[in-house]
Each structure stands twice: as structure tokens, then as C-alpha cells.
């Protein structure tokens, strides 16, 4: 009779501990989901701002956005191909990677960086010299 009672108490204790464990895991998980969402929003804003600022950079009187139009029109892409990786290397944290793509008339005329798989993507289209260029930056 006494043994049965002890077993029942141990069983009850086990159930209470199990419920406590589940409750704690639930509280922890419900909080961590929120932080991930915030981090994602922040990364999104950062990627968009980086792409916008990148296209405005002037180096020795030449603008990166104009260089891309030049690259699209005359396949003169050497300067953009050397400058963009240089800028990205300066601004990105060590260990981060990127992929920069520029498309005009459905043709991808420049593709830089080695970020494959999932990442935060931002698009920045613009029209210069009657040329529509769509730029895409992905940060991993």
C-alpha cells in the first residue's frame, strides 16, 4: 500500500517536472522567434541602404551607377569589376560574403561575389541615359 503511494507521488512529481520543462521551453522559444524577426528586418534595411549607397559612390570623378550603365552599353566593365569587390571588402564584416548582379534588358551583364544559398536580397532599379538597370545585392 505504502509502495503504491510512493510510486504515485513519484509519478505526480514527474508529471509536474515535465510540465515545468515544457513551459520553460515554450517561454524561451516564444521569445527567440521575436529576436530573429527583428534581426532579419535590420539585415534587410542594412542591405538596402548598402546597395543604395554603393551605387552613389564616386571614385576619381566616376560614379559606380554610371560605370554599370557604361558596362551595359559598351561592355566596358573592367572598372566596375575591380571597384565593387574592393568596396564590399571594405564595408563587409570578416566572414560575410555577397553577390552583386546587374541586369539590363533581361541580360545579366555583371555578376560579382560568391554568396550562394540563402541570404538577404535587395533590389535597386534606376534609369540613366535611357537605360534601365536593375541591381541586386545578396548578403550571406
Amino acid at each position, binding site marked *: 500500500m505504502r509502495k503504491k503511494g510512493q510510486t504515485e507521488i513519484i509519478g505526480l512529481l514527474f508529471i509536474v517536472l515535465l510540465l515545468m520543462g515544457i513551459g520553460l521551453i515554450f517561454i524561451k522559444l516564444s521569445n527567440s522567434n*521575436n529576436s530573429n524577426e527583428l534581426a532579419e528586418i535590420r539585415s534587410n534595411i542594412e542591405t538596402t*541602404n548598402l546597395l543604395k*549607397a*554603393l551605387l*552613389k559612390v564616386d571614385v576619381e570623378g566616376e560614379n559606380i551607377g554610371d560605370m554599370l550603365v557604361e558596362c551595359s552599353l559598351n561592355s566596358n566593365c573592367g572598372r566596375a569589376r575591380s571597384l565593387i569587390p574592393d568596396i564590399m571588402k571594405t564595408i563587409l564584416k570578416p566572414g560575410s560574403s555577397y553577390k552583386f548582379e546587374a541586369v539590363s534588358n533581361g541580360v545579366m551583364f555583371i555578376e560579382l561575389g560568391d554568396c550562394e544559398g540563402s541570404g538577404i536580397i535587395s533590389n535597386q532599379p534606376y534609369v540613366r541615359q535611357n537605360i534601365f538597370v536593375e541591381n541586386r545585392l545578396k548578403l550571406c
Partner: protein
Amino acid sequence: MVVDCFSNKKGVARMTETILVLFFVVVLISAVMIVYYKINIGNIKERGFELSEEGASVLLNSITRMAEVSCNNEDCLDIVKILAFREVSKRQASYYRSIFGNKKIFVERLYPESLEKECEVNDFNSNVFPGNCNKITIYEEVPESYNSKAIVSSPVSLWYDVHGAHSLGRITIEVYK
């Protein structure tokens, strides 16, 4: 008489058992409540930290649109305006403290690279500007003691009117709590 004594002992034993069970139940509930509140307080602190980061992110975006520092028709920060604003914010400290609070806001030039140094008015007047300095503190109000510091930053385009050129920079807000 014998029967009475026996039933009395049994009753005491049952009462003791009930008291013990009640005691353990109360201890268990208290333990659960303590653990729950500890976690909750931790979560609230974390949420508070996140909210201050969120607030700083919103401020970061609004600063880049503030007439005092932003370019006229473009999405960028004007270095000349920033240098002027730094002086104005010092002179009208109480007004800007009511807007920004306990924060440090600064801008760094990242590309093209320049000397790692805080920019002063003398540096601005130099021929080698902006190559002679890379950082401008827009606003600084750091409390003597603080519990936590949240840092939020974002890339930004910087406009150098003297050279008529854009550079790539980063605006950072440090929030002190």
C-alpha cells in the same frame, strides 16, 4: 477505548500526510512561480533592450532625413551640414537632448578610405580633406554610468560638396540605458 486510540492515531497520520502533501504542493507551485518570474524578468529585460535597438533603428532612418544633416534632394548625408550641426547641437544641448536622449551618433567614412581620426573644423579646412580624417561625431550624450549599450548602424552615402563627390560611409547610434 482501544478502538478510539487507534482511530485517533490514524487520523493524526492522515492529517500529517495531508499537511505534507499540501506543503510539497505549495513548495512546487512556489518553485514554478519563481522560475517563471525569473524567466519573465529576463525576457522583459531582453525585450527592453530590443525595443531600444528598434527605437535606435527608427532614429537612424529619421536622422538620414533630418533637414539639419541630409542632402537637399537626395538620400544622403551632407558632410558640411553635419559639421555645422555638431556645433549647433552643442550650443542647443538641452533641445537636442530632449530629442535624442542618452546616445552617441557618429558617421564614419569607409570608402574611399581615409586616416582614422575624428574630423575637426581644421581638418575640413585642410587641402587633403577628406583624406585626413574619417569620423564625425554628430551628437554625444554619454551618461556617467549605464547598464547596457545597444549599437545600431547602417551604411549611408556621404556627400562632400567641396569635391562634388559621394563616399560610402556608416552611421552608428549607440544607445545607453
